[in-house]
């Protein structure tokens, strides 16, 4: 019996373990960029996590991206990595008694943040609800398309990233490619994201979106003012989301997010939660405020309110 089991050293035998090892190594070699690939491909392949980039490396990475995007889109593109401002935590307010559901914010966001036009990605989804039912999401309809809004008997609830303090999406990321910045904005390092989409499954607001294909943006519609953690053109296979227009709001002085600037009824409010004089603090202290899916304890920093 024991003789039968002995291997004949002259015969090449492939065990299951060996075969799998070989297969994995082969696939691994295939994934490495070819030696003929340009230096920038190699550099991005070996690039560190955004938070571990040194002071010397970060400008190099930004310069490499600027060069790459400028070449790709045939016009100068800037990529910055403006850090947060100390003493700032961003909060957003949305007046449900004012919103008319016109979707101006959706498209202002698309053009400001370089979302893919084809396939279509929208960071903001406006949901139509029934006035009689109140906030009952089983009544939600987001394909509504009447001639004129607002429609009788309906009100509208725009939903985007709620920038949760207790964000489920950042906890499930297996590679820590998404995290909460000190000013409360949840960001994604598109160069670190592996595209597993766990965060999309974890988000109770449907606020994260996946690039199934390389985003297609017409060159003349590209917003060339970009941020590493925000609106720079995204590669295929990564997740993206609202960043409160990080490229606009982190400036000194900082502009308002694009959705706030476009709103024709002034339903959108934005400010610093740590500033007692800000409009966001005023509305939290003086208006009836509503948090979406408050029972999940995600602690959103997106405050729906009723102005009147």
């Amino acid at each position: 019996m024991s003789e039968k089991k002995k291997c004949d050293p002259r015969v090449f035998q492939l065990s299951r373990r060996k075969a799998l090892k070989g297969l994995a190594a082969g696939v691994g070699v295939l994934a490495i960029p070819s030696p003929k690939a340009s230096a920038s491909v190699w550099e991005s392949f070996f690039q560190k996590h955004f938070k571990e980039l040194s002071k010397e490396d970060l400008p190099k990475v930004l310069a490499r991206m600027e060069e790459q995007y400028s070449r790709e889109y045939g016009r100068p593109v800037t990529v910055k990595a403006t850090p947060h401002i100390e003493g700032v935590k961003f909060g957003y307010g949305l007046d449900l008694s004012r919103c008319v559901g016109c979707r101006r914010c959706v498209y202002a966001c698309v053009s400001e943040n370089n979302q893919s036009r084809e396939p279509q990605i929208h960071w903001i989804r406006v949901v139509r609800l029934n006035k009689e039912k109140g906030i009952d999401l089983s009544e939600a309809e987001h394909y509504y398309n009447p001639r004129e809004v607002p429609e009788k008997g309906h009100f509208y609830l725009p939903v985007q990233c709620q920038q949760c303090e207790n964000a489920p999406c950042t906890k499930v990321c297996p590679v820590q490619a998404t995290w909460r910045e000190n000013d409360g904005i949840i960001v994604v390092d598109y160069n670190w994201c592996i595209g597993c989409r766990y965060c999309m499954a974890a988000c109770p607001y449907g606020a994260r979106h996946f690039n199934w294909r390389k985003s297609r943006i017409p060159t003349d519609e590209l917003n060339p003012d970009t941020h590493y953690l925000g609106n720079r053109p995204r590669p295929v296979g990564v997740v993206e989301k609202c960043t409160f227009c990080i490229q606009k709001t982190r400036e000194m002085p900082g502009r308002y997010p694009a959705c706030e600037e476009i709103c024709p009824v002034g339903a959108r409010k934005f400010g610093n939660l740590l500033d007692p004089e800000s409009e966001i603090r005023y509305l939290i202290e003086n208006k009836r405020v509503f948090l979406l899916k408050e029972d999940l304890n995600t602690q959103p920093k997106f405050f729906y309110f009723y102005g009147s």
Partner: protein
Amino acid sequence: MKRIIILLKLSVLGIVSAGLLGLLTVSSEAAREKYFDRSGRLIVIDKPAADLLRTYDTKNRPPEKSFPVPPPPFTEGIFPCSDCHEGMEPNLQRRTLEDMHTDILLNHAEGQRWCLDCHNPEDRDTLRLVSGEVIPFSESYRLCGQCHGDKYRDWRKGIHGKRTGFWNGDKEYLLCAHCHNPHDPRFKPIHPMPPPERPARGPH
């Protein structure tokens, strides 16, 4: 006795200098950011000076300009009103206008007011508050605020209406009349932008 005093003095000096040293180290600590990477290694990085300077100071902020607004939304060629009204005797009689301004349809508590309750009969280029105070068109929010006090209060805080500019800097307001026609203030319905595309049909 002298020795004891000298000793005391020395120890006080030592404590003070130790405290100063502690302060110094604390302040240099503040310029560093510490965190652990995934393998548990402690990483200390010097925070760039720009990071420390970018502090949002809520106490020593520059005074905001008081309600800067864009020019009032007049109909093309209508202002200044005195171009026509100059030298015209004001007719204080409440009536339906037939010669001019027939396009104005008053749908704003019309039973209780008419033109000259708000427009100043003495000088048509201005408005008039109930108190008799004369104000320019660029301050018309004060006129509206006479009745709509709650909205006026919210508007000044940036809650009612739209405020643009900088969230941590100068802001620009809009006059009530930029969004609401003062003669017919209800907000008019608008055409919505197209709905999102439905997901492509899969294999099912």
